[in-house]
């Protein structure tokens, strides 16, 4: 059997490709190495009922995978560390049907026009390879619009003064602001910033056959029990409904097979542990910016740029404890953003100059907070101090956080390659991440950290502190804090015109094998300071349309805004 396309990975990229290709009449097989907790196994056009408000299951027992005992990664900050300084969990995105779309709290902003022209707009920096994208914001805009409708994104056009132009409104109005965000956005505005309701892939009204979000609060890190998050359940369900898609969970693609300049199919290991192969006319690689280069390396593709330029947002998080409870356990984890610190101003330009940089950019700032009681309790000492902490509860009840997702410039020293010794349980070499931040990220973080703190103080915080990921204090030998935790991983299969400086072409095809299309954030030439999901889905959507010879819909669909069901009378918690 030869299928039209094998799609490796069922996250936002693979699901988007499956949706577009099946709509165009292609037959596809979607391989996912993790388990299926997302779609009903008896009727894969319907969501499953396996997600729940369960901190143990999602945050402490790896329900969404990968389990680092059987699928570890390794880490070192640079080659001078030796082969590795850590084995286990390294900035992993869920390994499950739906991929990163299952655990994300669904903040899906678009990139800005200047993000696509970083080299032209800002110029080079020492030690990094600043590049333009081989496409512009305007090129991508129709695809952004289509994936926003496809996923179901809630937001308000015009609320963010720094946003690029839009061809159509958001499909839904934004959901309710968290109480803490009401306070922090007012404080930010008083200090001259421009916060706006975060474009969010969680329904604010019933949409596409799925209910409105009911604010349960188990959002970041959790699968949505009512499937109000559209990403990527919406795209996968549509693909399955065509009858032309087959989903194979717990199936690890171990190699892409090539003949000459073409891929002929894939080799895979199913849940029974047996290795088999499947022929395909096209291979869509959508395993994420760590696993996609790993698979090419496992397949023997040895281009020197495969795995190079790994980027992960440098996170600067300011937290502050307010005197009053903020009940941040309710709502969508993060409800507002501001972009002022990505755009920059005179003071950031001066700080860059003082730090020896020609220019610098911060990132979007997320206004949010939502610690859960187990995670909170584990941070207090045991004994009587346990109760002092839990009753006063600065971390869970009174904490507010501003997290800047700082732009990470593409360093050739930051890479994904195959670990020379460590294996996964199936016997394949695991991905080794070599990463440390560049001066740019450190200077930007040092500049913006105190400015984030100032917003919290304006908000009324009793105390504040700033933390970063990766940590700043980590030296050699200290491993955990040196490992970035952003879950935003990008680069590693850079997109460009020139095969000497990039791995994939502007259509997302490998330069060397033109029937292999990369449909995830591996292709990003730069990281911007926004969450990567919508942009990678838009790129996957575009790549799939180019494959199928179809166009994104340009007609704006009118969404009927049904009245939300009012929650019943207030019930006393437990």
């Amino acid at each position: 059997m030869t299928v039209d396309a094998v799609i490796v990975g069922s996250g936002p990229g693979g699901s988007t490709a499956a949706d577009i290709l099946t709509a165009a009449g292609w037959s596809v097989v979607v391989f996912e190495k993790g388990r299926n907790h997302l779609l009903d196994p008896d009727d894969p056009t319907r969501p499953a009922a396996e997600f729940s408000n369960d901190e143990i299951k999602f945050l402490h027992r790896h329900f969404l995978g990968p389990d680092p005992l059987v699928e570890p990664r390794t880490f070192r900050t640079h080659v001078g560390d030796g082969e590795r300084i850590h084995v286990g969990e390294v900035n992993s995105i869920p390994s499950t049907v739906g991929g990163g779309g299952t655990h994300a709290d669904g903040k899906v902003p678009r990139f800005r026009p200047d993000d696509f022209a970083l080299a032209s707009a800002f110029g080079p920096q020492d030690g990094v390879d600043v590049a333009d994208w081989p496409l512009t914001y305007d090129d991508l805009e129709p695809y952004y619009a289509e994936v926003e409708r496809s996923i179901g994104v809630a937001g308000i056009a015009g609320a963010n003064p720094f946003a690029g132009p839009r061809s159509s409104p958001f499909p839904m109005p934004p959901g309710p602001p968290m109480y803490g965000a009401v306070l922090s956005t007012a404080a930010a505005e008083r200090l001259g910033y421009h916060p706006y309701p975060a474009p969010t892939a969680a329904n604010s009204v019933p949409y596409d056959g799925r209910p409105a979000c009911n604010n349960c609060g188990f959002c970041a890190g959790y699968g949505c029990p009512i499937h109000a998050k559209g990403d990527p359940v919406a795209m996968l369900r549509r693909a399955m409904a065509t009858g032309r898609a087959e989903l194979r969970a717990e199936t690890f693609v171990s190699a892409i097979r090539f003949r000459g300049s073409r891929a002929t199919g894939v080799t895979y290991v199913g849940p029974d542990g047996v290795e088999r192969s499947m022929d395909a006319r096209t291979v869509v690689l959508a395993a994420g910016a760590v696993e996609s280069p790993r698979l090419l390396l496992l397949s023997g593709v040895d281009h020197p740029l495969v795995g190079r330029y790994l980027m992960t947002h440098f996170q600067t998080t300011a937290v502050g404890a307010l005197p009053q409870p903020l009940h941040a356990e309710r709502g969508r984890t993060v409800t507002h953003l501001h972009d002022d610190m990505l755009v920059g101003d005179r003071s950031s330009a001066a700080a860059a100059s003082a730090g020896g940089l020609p220019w610098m950019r911060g990132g979007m700032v997320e206004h949010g907070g939502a610690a859960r009681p187990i995670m909170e309790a584990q941070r207090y000492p045991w004994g009587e101090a346990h109760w002092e902490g839990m009753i006063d509860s600065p971390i869970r009840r009174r904490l507010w956080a501003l997290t800047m997702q700082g732009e990470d410039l593409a360093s050739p020293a930051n890479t994904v390659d195959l670990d020379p010794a460590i294996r996964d349980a199936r016997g394949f070499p695991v991905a080794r991440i070599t990463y440390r931040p560049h001066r740019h990220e450190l200077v930007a973080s040092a500049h913006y950290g105190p400015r984030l703190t100032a917003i919290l103080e304006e908000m009324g915080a009793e105390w504040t502190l700033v933390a970063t990921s990766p940590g700043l204090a980590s030296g050699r030998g200290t491993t955990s804090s040196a490992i970035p935790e952003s879950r935003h991983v990008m680069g590693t299969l850079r997109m460009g015109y020139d095969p000497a400086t990039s791995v994939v072409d502007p259509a997302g095809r490998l330069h060397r094998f033109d029937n292999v299309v990369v449909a995830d954030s591996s292709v990003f030439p730069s990281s911007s300071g926004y969450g990567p999901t919508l942009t990678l889905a838009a790129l996957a959507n575009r790549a799939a349309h180019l494959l199928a010879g179809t166009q994104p819909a340009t007609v704006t669909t009118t969404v009927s805004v049904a009245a939300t069901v009012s929650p019943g009378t207030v019930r006393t918690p437990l």
Partner: protein
Amino acid sequence: MLVNFSTLVLFLPALHQIERSSVALADKVVIGTVLVVVTLLPVLVPVLLVTALGPRAVPDRPPTPDPRPPTPGRSPTPGRARQPVGAPCYGDPMPVWLTDSEYRALSAACDRMIPPGDGRPGATDAGVPDYIDHLLGAFCFDPPRIWAGGPVSGRHGGAPGFGDFHRLGPLDELAWRMRIEGSSGHPEREFNGPVVGLQQRFRHGLAALGADFCDVAPEEQDARLRRDPEFGALVYQHACEGMYGAPEYGGNRHGAGWQAIGFAGDVQPRGWSDDEVSRP
């Protein structure tokens, strides 16, 4: 009683070989003893287990705690009556995997970490030792008690689904057996070297607290818990999970942990109203 015939077949020739070998007599005795023990292992292990643990070594009911609020006048399930799978019970002290003395030491340790008082439940009141015991004995159950079901618990409406634990896939089972049991010499668990499991870490750590741990003064208990910070952190990490995790995992009995800190727990399908999200 089952006798392992395959090892018995090898027993006599092996004994003969040892007898004829040139090693010292003392070594011959040691080797012979080892051979006898290894041969009789399939018989000895169940006997020893039953002797040490009593019939609890093979649990006959899944101790799913009652997800409902406590009903006045209802007492813990008496005795060890067999109940159908999934039936609620009160998880009264009945270790699944720990021995009775380990269970008592663990209870005392957890109560030093999350102490009772001021009207608040201590760790043991809230079933924390049961939570840890159920994790260590997760594979005594089918499906193993690793991931509670979904989508709702029934505490805020809807049909209770948390009690139906998920089946594990082959890779999940490998991972959780490695985490709980360690590699224990299984080659398929040692692809990156040996792994020490939670069972071993708890068993060794509890033994190191001393046989008199339950009887010494609280200050002495604290001192012993601080003597091995790694083990102390392991116990506290799991004590927090047992105190504030979903009751279906064996701890947080009747939501006692959540009540003590004013946390609503899982709130689906009710959720929160827009006003509850946005207003003070």
